[in-house]
């Protein structure tokens, strides 16, 4: 509670309240010294009386001081404000910030939080219009959405508030506060206040945490429009693996009780899955849907995952669009086929690992070295495994259409017949028993090494590798390099120091081997996925780049409305961009290419980065840190907007307390009389 005074001059009389203390301390009677016959009875009497008398005296002193203080203050006509909201200046500005992020769409007793916020704002404008000179209304989500301008035209302000609609954005209060501070900075010597009407959810400040034009004199009132405990479940993320045809759906329950929802998966418009999910309280839950119904020949997979709708329906749907690579093509060239592909050949082990349908979907071709040499025009492959090749022709390697080449060595290898850019990394043959080092420090593609017993993988022979123009990926325990990676002519080249059959090692029979080979095989897929993004967030631009010539673009929004994308045509590629994904849903791009009419679908979702659907409340600590030094108070939405507006009015405009202070003086005088008489 803060105070200001209408008749400040009386405050100069406040030192008078020290009169009783001065009298007590400095005008004490000097005691007489009296020689007395026997002082034991005086001592006894003093012991009996003095403590009570001391208490009485101190009480009287305090009461008299307080009486004088309150008397001075009463004459100074005090006005009380909650949390230091003084209003001494006549010039006043009030900014009402209304949160219109999508979490404000949460339904409390059939009414959205935004509609409650709007009702409150209108009430506030009505009540303040006499007292505050200028009011502005700002609607905000993660940026300033709309601004009414500073005015005292209440009708205009009310109309403005009524027109505020829910956005599909998450919340970030800072840009809106910055905006208001900037407006306020134009007014000097003025009482300025900001009323922020929001649901006070955890990540209220979004990514930004610092106010640029901060002014500690501006008073802040936070109004929480949420009622009771929110119960919201939302889909946080959806991913898809076209190797395993598995959807991984991450669902978050922000309520304090377990929630049960139906989960549906739609591919395009077909509902291919319905199930019931239970999500523990305040936890993220991952749900996997494995489907075999997906058309393998399609280049993309789009649709939506939907939970049964709750009080905040907007975050219960997640749109997706995944590029599908189709079957991966693998070429295995075995330099030592050993009477066909018998059990101890590289071909056998590679086939065993890569043909497992549970983990991948590969088309595998196997050539012997002569076949490999004789092919002039190769097909395009994703990965080429060159195992124990006696020689490697430079032209052959250059002509091969692939993203990744994996070269394993062996007893057939004649390093002299290898191209220079491979030979430079291979040194002599070492016949020492080694195993993989348990402490791999250079690996960038194997992330789960900890789960394998690398020490049990033994190599009896290996070529010593160096890291010239390359990077170390795996090492042996003795420090020698086991696997290096390098980039040659936009190809990923991996050179492995030993064999991948059981001639020089037990590696193929160990659990690490399938993971090792599949990780190499999947390298190209990850790189491709990064090029075009098909799952976007609201306001994120659609950007599509095609390396083949395309024409006749047609972009439509989720409602089927045609949009105007920006097209950039370059000799080698054509890019299409569109800024204006304001609604969640599937945006469809239609174009003509060499293959005929093609479609690309872009899934636009509400922002999940700041967990807007997580409705747990924000602490006061971050608010205090960000608005450090500002007088601020927190008001909870009352049963009606009128009551809430009254409370905010009390906070901002204060109440004259002269009568209260005079009453206190009378009470103090009564207390003084009582102490004098009865104590």
């Amino acid at each position: 509670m803060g105070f200001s005074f209408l008749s400040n001059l009386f405050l100069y009389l406040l030192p008078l309240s020290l009169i009783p203390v001065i009298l007590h301390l400095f005008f004490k009677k000097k005691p007489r010294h009296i020689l007395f016959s026997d002082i034991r009875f005086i001592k006894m009497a003093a012991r009996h009386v003095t403590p009570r008398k001391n208490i009485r005296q101190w009480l009287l002193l305090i009461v008299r001081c307080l009486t004088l203080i309150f008397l001075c203050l009463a004459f100074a006509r005090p006005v009380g404000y909650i949390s230091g909201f003084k209003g001494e200046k006549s010039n006043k500005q009030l900014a009402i910030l209304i949160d219109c992020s999508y979490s404000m769409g949460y339904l409390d007793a059939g009414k959205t939080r935004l509609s409650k916020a709007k009702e409150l704002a209108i009430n506030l404008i009505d009540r303040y219009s006499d007292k505050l000179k200028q009011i502005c209304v700002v609607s905000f989500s993660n940026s300033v959405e709309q601004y009414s301008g500073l005015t005292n035209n209440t009708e205009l302000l009310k109309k403005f508030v009524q027109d505020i609609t829910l956005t599909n954005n998450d919340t970030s209060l800072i840009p809106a506060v910055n905006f208001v501070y900037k407006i306020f900075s134009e007014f000097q010597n003025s009482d300025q206040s900001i009323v922020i009407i929001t649901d006070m959810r955890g990540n209220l400040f979004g990514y930004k945490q610092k106010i640029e034009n901060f002014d500690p004199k501006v008073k802040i009132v936070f109004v929480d429009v949420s009622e009771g405990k929110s119960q919201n479940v939302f889909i946080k993320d959806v991913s898809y693996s076209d190797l395993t045809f598995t959807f991984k759906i991450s669902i978050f329950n922000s309520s304090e009780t377990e929630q049960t929802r139906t989960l549906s998966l739609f591919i395009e418009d077909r509902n291919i899955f319905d199930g019931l999910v239970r999500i523990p309280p305040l936890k993220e839950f991952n749900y996997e849907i494995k489907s075999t119904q997906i058309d393998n020949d399609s280049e993309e997979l789009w649709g939506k995952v939907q939970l049964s709708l709750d009080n905040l329906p907007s975050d219960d749907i997640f749109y997706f669009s995944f590029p599908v690579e189709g079957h991966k093509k693998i070429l295995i060239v075995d330099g030592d086929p050993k009477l066909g592909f018998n059990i101890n050949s590289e071909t056998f082990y590679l086939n065993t690992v890569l043909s497992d349908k549970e983990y991948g979907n590969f088309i595998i071709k196997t050539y012997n070295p002569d076949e490999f040499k004789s092919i002039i025009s190769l097909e395009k492959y994703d990965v080429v495994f060159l195992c124990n090749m006696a020689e490697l022709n430079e032209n052959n390697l250059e002509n091969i259409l692939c993203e990744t080449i994996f070269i394993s060595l062996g007893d057939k290898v004649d390093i002299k017949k290898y191209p220079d850019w491979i030979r430079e990394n291979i040194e002599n043959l070492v016949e020492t028993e080694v195993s993989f080092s348990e402490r791999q420090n250079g690996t960038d593609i194997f992330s789960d090494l900890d789960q394998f017993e690398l020490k049990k993988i033994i190599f009896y022979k290996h070529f010593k590798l160096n890291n010239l123009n390359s990077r170390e990926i795996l090492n042996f325990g003795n420090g020698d390099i086991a696997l290096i990676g390098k980039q040659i002519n936009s190809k990923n080249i991996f050179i492995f120091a030993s064999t991948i059959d059981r001639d020089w090692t037990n590696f193929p029979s160990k659990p690490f081997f399938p993971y090792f080979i599949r990780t190499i095989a999947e390298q190209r897929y990850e790189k491709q996925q990064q090029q075009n993004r098909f799952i976007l967030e609201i306001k994120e631009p659609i950007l599509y780049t095609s390396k083949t010539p395309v024409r006749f673009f047609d972009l439509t929004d989720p409602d089927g409305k045609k949009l105007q994308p920006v097209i950039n045509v370059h000799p080698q590629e054509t890019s299409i961009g569109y800024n204006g994904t304001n609604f969640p849903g599937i945006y469809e791009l239609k174009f003509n290419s060499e293959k005929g009419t093609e479609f690309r679908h872009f899934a636009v979702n509400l922002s999940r980065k700041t967990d807007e659907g997580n409705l747990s409340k924000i602490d006061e600590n971050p608010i205090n840190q960000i608005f450090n030094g500002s007088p601020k108070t927190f008001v909870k939405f009352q049963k009606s907007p009128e009551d809430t507006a009254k409370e905010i009015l009390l906070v901002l405009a204060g109440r004259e307390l002269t009568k209260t202070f005079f009453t206190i003086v009378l009470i103090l005088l009564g207390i003084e009389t009582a102490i004098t008489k009865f104590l």
Partner: protein
Amino acid sequence: MAEKLKYIDPLTLLKLGNLHLRARYVVEGLISGLHRSPFKGSSLEFSQHREYAPFDDLRYLDWKIFGRTDRFFIKQYEEETNLRAYILLDSSSSMSFKSEKNIDKLTYSVNLAASLTYLLLCQDDSVGLAVFDKKINSFIPPRANFEQFSTIANILENLKPGLDTEIHQSINEFSRYLKKRGLIIFISDLFDSPEKVMFSIKQLRFKHHDVIVFHVLDPCELNLIYNGPVIFESIENKQDSVYTEVQDIKEHYSSLIKSFIQEYKIGFQNSGIDYSLITTDTPIELGLGTFLASRKK
């Protein structure tokens, strides 16, 4: 008040010459006031006759012998002292206390003691004196002649306040001087432990001595007459002091001192000891009156 006016107040009494004169004034004034002669007792007993010699008092002529023998014989009486009185006077430093407009307790007690001595000697009783503070400082064995008054008066007139009071110790010491039963007149402010004091005095009573206690207090000791903040310092030990606002403790002090007096009063009464509380503003005759009244019993 009317009664008081008949007597001379102690302060005025002090102006009446020496102690002898004051004692005589008090005693004779008292006796005339009482209209009863102390000499009418049977304190003289016939011993023998002797022949009249010039200047003998004619009052003692035995006229019956003269009638029978026609010769003058004087009746000779054997002096009989049936009362040995001891005045036990407290001269501790606490007795030097006096309030405004009053004499100090020691001076009052000295005059009271002198008057009692005079009175008793007038009755031909033998009177002795013991002055004490922590111990017996002077002791005069009892005698019945009037020279005894001079001896006692001489000591009393030169008496100065002594040290702390140890009443019970002094009484115990005094009891060793007592050979025969007698009357013990105890004059003190009794500022000591009541239990110990009463125990010692009761011991005297158990030895069949008559005991009269004159409890001499200053009026101010009964009711504190001061006001405002006061630091009270003990006369007996000036290191011992207490600061207080007198008006705050007055009431409680009065009740404490009253219960202190009451304790003595009840204690002595229960043991058959005459107890008399005298304040220093009381005329000494009244103190003597109390004494005589108690002796009449």
